[in-house]
């Protein structure tokens, strides 16, 4: 806040109009509320929030690419890919740390394959993304429901340490999420590929006239999203200590919510990776808060859905309908 006072009013109004502002303010407000209501340590809450929030952020950063490409693109298969990967990783590693790297590659390969199927259905058969990815998700769900009874084991102590541990109070997961968000931010704003994604999201006809191969770019975004979901599943299995059928349940709304709350346009063309981090922390701490005040699972769902609706409503016409 002191920075705002020092600088000119131009900076102040830029901050006030910043798209990620609701998420940042929300995260701080919820953190303060948790600190007041709860009796745990203030930084302990932040630490656990950052760890859990990092998983949401990782799926959100993948989803960011898909949504930024605009034209109705969205990936609803995230939770299913994540869960399948958690099972596959648990089965492949089975407590053996030496198998972590091959398992990670296998899981990423599965993610890439599912992402490619999603993109193919959307691009070639022209299924609406929201229907196509959900249909693929159902097929993937069937696969892991059939496979799950035969899967034993866990993802090993190494992944477990990465997912739960930290260095001098800072969780490894938070470091991973911050580094990746920085990377994604660089890719989206500075790289050839990222600029193409954003151009496509702003106007597909214009992007195509400029020589951008919209099909290839869209294909790549779905692959990136599914790979990020599958690797998150690997890490999440390490955090939870094994795979379960509902391990990914909260990531369907979660991965989309953090993109929207983080100040990115659902219509595409505007992306904000650091905002995704802030929003992930916000919704994770919000769940902590609802846990603290002992509301039922139902009320939690209502609060989460309601906040998304409220934020969507405040985002307003011009911002969503970018031209």
């Amino acid at each position: 806040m002191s920075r705002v006072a020092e600088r000119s009013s131009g900076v102040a109004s830029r901050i006030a109009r910043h798209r990620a502002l609701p998420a940042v303010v929300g995260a701080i407000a919820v953190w303060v509320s948790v600190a007041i209501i709860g009796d745990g340590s203030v930084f302990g809450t932040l630490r656990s929030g950052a760890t859990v929030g990092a998983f949401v952020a990782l799926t959100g950063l993948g989803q960011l690419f898909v949504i930024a490409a605009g034209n109705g693109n969205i990936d609803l298969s995230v939770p299913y890919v994540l869960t399948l990967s958690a099972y596959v990783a648990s089965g492949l590693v089975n407590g053996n740390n030496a198998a972590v790297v091959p398992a990670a590659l296998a899981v990423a390969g599965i993610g890439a394959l599912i992402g490619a199927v999603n993109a193919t259905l959307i691009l070639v058969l022209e299924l609406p993304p929201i229907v196509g990815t959900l249909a693929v998700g159902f097929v993937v769900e069937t696969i892991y429901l059939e496979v799950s009874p035969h899967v034993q084991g866990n993802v090993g102590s190494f992944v477990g340490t990465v997912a739960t541990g930290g260095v001098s109070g800072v969780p490894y997961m938070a470091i991973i999420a911050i580094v990746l968000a920085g990377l994604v931010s660089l890719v989206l704003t500075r790289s050839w590929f990222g600029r193409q994604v954003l151009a496509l999201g702003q106007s597909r006809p214009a992007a195509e006239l400029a020589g951008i191969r919209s099909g290839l770019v869209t294909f790549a975004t779905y692959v990136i999203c599914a790979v990020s979901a599958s690797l998150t599943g690997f890490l999440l299995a390490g955090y939870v200590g094994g795979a379960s059928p509902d391990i990914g349940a909260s990531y369907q709304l979660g991965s989309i919510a953090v993109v929207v709350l983080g100040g990115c346009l659902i219509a595409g063309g505007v992306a904000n990776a650091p905002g995704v981090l802030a929003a992930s922390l916000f919704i994770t701490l919000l769940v902590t808060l609802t846990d603290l005040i002992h509301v039922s699972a139902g009320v939690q769902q209502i609060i989460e859905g309601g906040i998304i609706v409220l934020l969507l409503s405040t985002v307003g016409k011009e911002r969503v309908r970018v031209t």
Partner: protein
Amino acid sequence: MRFLRRRDVAAVALALALFGVMASVQPGILTATGLDLTLLGMVPLAFAAVAQMIVMAGGDIDLSLGSAMGLVNAICATAFTKSVWVGVGELVAFVVGYVLMGAVIEFRRLPALIVTFAFSFIWLGFALVVLPTPGGVAPAWMTQLFSYSIPGIPEPILLLVVLAAASWLYLQRTRTGRLIRSLGNKRLAVQQFAAHPFSVRLRMYLAAGVVLVLGGFSLTAESSSGDPNSGQSYLLLSIAAVVIGGGDFAGGSSWPIGAVAGAVALGFVSSLDSFFQISANLLFALQGLLLIVALGLRRAEVLGQWLFVRRRGDREEGAVTQGVLPGEGT
């Protein structure tokens, strides 16, 4: 022969063909009781398909439909045991909530996909508040309502026919129905009818909400208890039924008879597991694949054109393959 080119004929043919297959495998379903049992399970899906069709005719997609059915089911199985008025009150509140959802979409001009998706969590949340775990009982009158039968005509058939006829009349023959279709087609057309898009979208979600209440009734009567998650499987199936029945994502047209026939066809597919020994898990995949195939076939024609045009190196392909995405509007 003109009717053969109608987009809903394929769905009716598919439903009849699947019925033929089922009847040849299991002649027992040809009796009145057999028909009753086979078709009763399809009634909730038919209601869901009609609700989805109304919303899709207006150019939206309702992703909250599954949770909404679950909420109505949960209300039916709990509130009505306390008092009829509590139940009616909660159902009215639900329909008002549905209209409110339409208001949010129209007022802020947001994509319906996203708003209904967020609302699906709100409906599920309320369902979990009303009924935290599966349980409750269906009110006796509700079960009776759906097991009433006129001698000679199995009730599910009667229900399906009445549903198809009523929704056809509503969308094709009333002013509101025309307005809904024109909303999906072209916003400007609504204004040329001297109506306000805002009120049309509210009426559209009102109609969908009312149909979902009836669908929830049939779901409760069929399962004779409540489960907050009971509606989830109807979301994809309802979209699939509409698409098989001739509807599309662009909005502007409606095929009520096709949607009901599509629901019956999908219902037959869903009951395949009891006829052939298929795992219930595989059924999910089967439904997902069926949706992909149904939508894929729709594209086959355009795809052929695309391949052909591409070979000639014609740049006009873009105009053919670039559909307007649902929910984006103009």
